[in-house]
């Protein structure tokens, strides 16, 4: 990583997903790269998303709660 590139961050949003910002490669259990289509992505935290590893908002309908 160059000196100017900021560290990637993962931020938990209460009752919702983890927001991932920065240069991180996502891959499957088999090591296959999962394409990222946007700079900031939301990672599913409730386990119910139909587009995992990304969030699709289903946690809201399911009443998912976090302790933050």
């Amino acid at each position, binding site marked *: 990583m160059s000196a100017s590139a900021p560290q990637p961050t993962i931020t938990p*949003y209460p009752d919702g997903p983890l*927001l991932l910002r920065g240069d991180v490669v996502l891959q499957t259990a088999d090591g296959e790269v999962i394409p990222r*289509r946007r700079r*900031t992505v939301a990672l599913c935290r409730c386990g119910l998303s*139909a587009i995992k590893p990304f969030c*699709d*908002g289903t946690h809201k309908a399911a009443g998912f709660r976090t302790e933050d």
Partner: protein
Amino acid sequence: MTITAPALAGAAVRPRGPLGEAVLHALTAAEPADRETLARQAEAALRSCSDITTDEDIQLALFLLYASAYGTLDGLEADREWEPALIAVRLMLESAFERALRTRVTVPDLPEPTADAVARELFALVAADDGPSLFRHLARRATADQAREFLMQRSIYTLREAYPHSWAIPRLSGSPKAALVEIQSDEYGGGRPDRVHAELFAKALRGAGLDDTYGAYVDDVPAITLASLNMMSMFGLNRRLIGAIVGHLAAFEMTSSIPNRLYADGLRRLGFEDDVTDYFDEHVEADAVHEQIAARDLAGGLAAQHPHLLPDIMFGAAACLAIDGAVAGHMLDAWERQSSSLRTAVTP
């Protein structure tokens, strides 16, 4: 080489009454507008209207005045954007429109002005909204003709998606500004012209056999559809309403990812291909990101920075739900009666 001005597409929009006719003339004619005549027309239109959100003449006039600021319709003279007579009319109409919205919309109890409390209150407000559900109808029952009507209705805003909220960028500072730019950058394709959301929607229109020219369906949509965009334009263009445009964006993003999944499902059920469903599929993932940023970092961040804006943040969010609910209700009511939600029968 001869350079010709663009065709007069804006001038092709048909006025719906004397005020719209006067405004359109003032935006397109060679001679300058007469301030007193325009003001008299606006006063008369406001006097005779019972519900400004469904007043065809007034909403079209406002739509044209905002189109002049955005430059979204060809044929509107650029040097009329700041014409005092037209600005005076816009202020008269906006004053009545804003008053009607504030009367109509119930603003929830205000949370503490912290990012966390505001985000939680916004999610609760959206979850409690029991407005009509257009996406369920699209998913399960809508006909292909109704799906095309839905795309035509949506084209008024979505072919120019994200435009009204961008007015807020230079008026914010610090983390709320960074949050809005993070969302808008994604709306505008993150540097990839083919991923600009408005372009994805244009592709959807073409895929459904519809016209992707901006304004092609203005004459077909009712006042309430214009009112939905006009409300965003009013919130966006008036710096004093910065809280309302931020709250509006939060509610808009928070009512998007799950509905868009169902719109995409419905369109696939009806046999539309990927070129039509891409826009909707994209928004399932995109708006699950945007809603978090909009609620917490943008709206919550702004309230923490400027607590006096909190009432307008909540008003903007509630107004988004109320008016978009009315647009959905209009379409569902028309389809329930086996008729069209458009003002005119259209052959695509």
